[in-house]
């Protein structure tokens, strides 16, 4: 029974991680952009949720509003921050995103509040379902179904829609895609919009699990997203989703089976596992070399 419970936990945590990694990997895939400010998109979504719920907007409307705001924030970020450095070396892009991430967090800290604020969500979200002796939290269940929904519609979006096909082509060879008459700005905007939408969903799932927002709430998620995207192979969407589940599996297994004395070292051990995986597959599970493309 314990094994089954661990499997369920890993699966539901993995859903959240896979969404994070996917939102992060979209930009790596198309622009070679490791967007550290992805965490701040989540934070912005979180604050939107806080503001809307405290002003009494029903939860059904909060969800699309949060996603819309995150998408807008992502598009603004692209227009103001990333367009001037488009096409630069991946490290330049990463450093730019560091600066932007730091900037947004500090601005929230200075002008909104440095303290954590509680978000009131419908009570359903804090319950958990019991199946015999197994327990599944409602937020986890929701995140898993949201992930499955995204994972199922995403390939369709990439393969069947015009924008999706243009995005995949841009990931293969951006200059040639532009020669084929695809507008660069439109593809890039689409990628940022997708990334922002996924960040919005992540934001809702995140506050459903922790119940509070603060300016630093994006810091841990972005590390998870980064790691999962890196382990999956920077630039591979399938790999990122897969690695999200793998990361969650390692974490849950360590959580469940580590003896008490070493439990405090959990995240160190997770990272040791990740470095071992990287040594085995230097470009990630399904990856390619960003710097050399």
């Amino acid at each position, binding site marked *: 029974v314990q094994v089954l419970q661990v499997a369920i936990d890993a699966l539901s945590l993995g859903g959240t991680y896979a969404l994070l990694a996917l939102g992060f990997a979209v930009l790596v895939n198309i622009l070679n952009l490791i967007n550290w400010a992805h965490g701040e998109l989540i934070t912005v979504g979180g604050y939107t949720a806080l503001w809307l719920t405290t002003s009494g907007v029903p939860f059904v409307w909060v969800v699309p509003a949060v996603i819309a705001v995150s998408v807008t924030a992502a598009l603004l970020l692209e227009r103001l921050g990333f367009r001037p450095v488009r096409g630069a070396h991946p490290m330049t892009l990463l450093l730019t995103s560091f600066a932007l991430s*730091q900037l947004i967090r500090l601005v929230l800290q*200075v002008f909104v509040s440095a303290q954590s604020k509680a978000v009131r969500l419908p009570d359903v979200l804090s319950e958990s379902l019991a199946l015999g002796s197994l327990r599944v939290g409602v937020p986890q269940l929701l995140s898993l179904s949201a992930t499955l929904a995204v994972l199922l519609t995403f390939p369709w979006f990439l393969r069947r829609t015009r924008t999706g096909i243009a995005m995949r082509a841009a990931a293969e060879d951006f200059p040639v895609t532009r020669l084929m008459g695809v507008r660069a700005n439109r593809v890039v905007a689409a990628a940022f919009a997708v990334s922002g939408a996924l960040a919005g969903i992540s934001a809702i799932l995140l506050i459903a699990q922790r119940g509070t927002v603060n300016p630093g709430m994006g810091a841990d998620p972005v590390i998870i997203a980064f790691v999962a995207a890196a382990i999956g192979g920077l630039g591979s969407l399938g790999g990122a989703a897969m690695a999200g589940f793998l990361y969650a599996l390692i974490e849950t297994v360590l959580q469940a089976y580590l003896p008490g004395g070493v439990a405090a*070292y959990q995240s160190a051990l997770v990272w040791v596992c990740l470095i071992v995986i*990287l040594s085995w597959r230097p470009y990630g599970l399904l990856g390619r070399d960003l710097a050399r493309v």
Partner: protein
Amino acid sequence: MRDRLTELSPLPRALAGSLALAAFVVVAAIVGEPLAGETIVVLALINLIATVGLSVFSSNSGVMSFGHAAFFGVGAYVSSLLTMDAFSKELLLPNLPGWAVDLHMGLLPALVITVLLVGAVALLIGFPLMRLPSLSVSIATFGVLIIAGTVFFAATQFTNGSGAFYGVPPTVGKWTVVALAVIAVVVARVFRDSVVGLQLRASKEDDFGARASGVRVTRARRVAWTLSAMIAAAAGVAYAGYLTAFSPRAFNFDATFVFITMLVVGGRESTIGAVVGVFAITAVSQLLENLGQTLEGQLSLEIVGLPQIGAALLLLAVMIFRREGIAGSLELDERLSRRTRPREATQ
């Protein structure tokens, strides 16, 4: 005089250049003190040591490391455990094993032992890490940071966990830090033109080309990684010995971000870049700090984080307008000799 400088072979020229750079550091430290106060100057110099350490690896190899705050932290903890007397240790760390309680020595042996120990650890870590391709190395150094951070928090009998670490004897004064900064700058500048440094820089320009010419890139990276970790550890020793109390939060991602910002803003291709970056960021932060205090006084509201916002904006501006950093990619002496070389040709 100018001709003699350009005729020097790279290594003596690097030495001459590094001494000029070191002199600049000393002068800046002396001039800065009445302007900003001793604490700010010393902390800037400690940042300088750590950033120069980071540049030994990152500037030469072109691989960004996120892990140097970890070595900075290990340096602080290890040297503190070595210099504290048994009484202060028992006060702070009641569960410390007996062999560690009895260790007690002066600053110099503690500095040497700490730096060598961190060097050995970095060398060991370097074996699996430096084999990886560039971007994966960066990712893995991020892991080094997280693993070290976890250990600082979890190894409570040695580190007091998430609590503050205090009672470190004040063994480090301003001039010790100045001396360490000078040594760090000279070592970094000379290493840049040493055989390994040149090999690394060749591999940064063209990885395949360097390998084809017989450069063992993995080994060269490992050497630079170890050396740079040792310099970062020395910065940690100075940090602990000067402040006498510190928190594990001083060694987290924010610290890494500070070092990287300083290096990149100044110029991530050169030693002078690290130096210029530290001074630029410190100056801007101090100005904004003062501005914030004046504003607070006039508007009677609390403004925190203005210096950090300034640093982030500066980083963003450098990324957009001047990617090679304020100081550019040439060292001082290289700039001088470049300028004289065409004249030589016409003579």
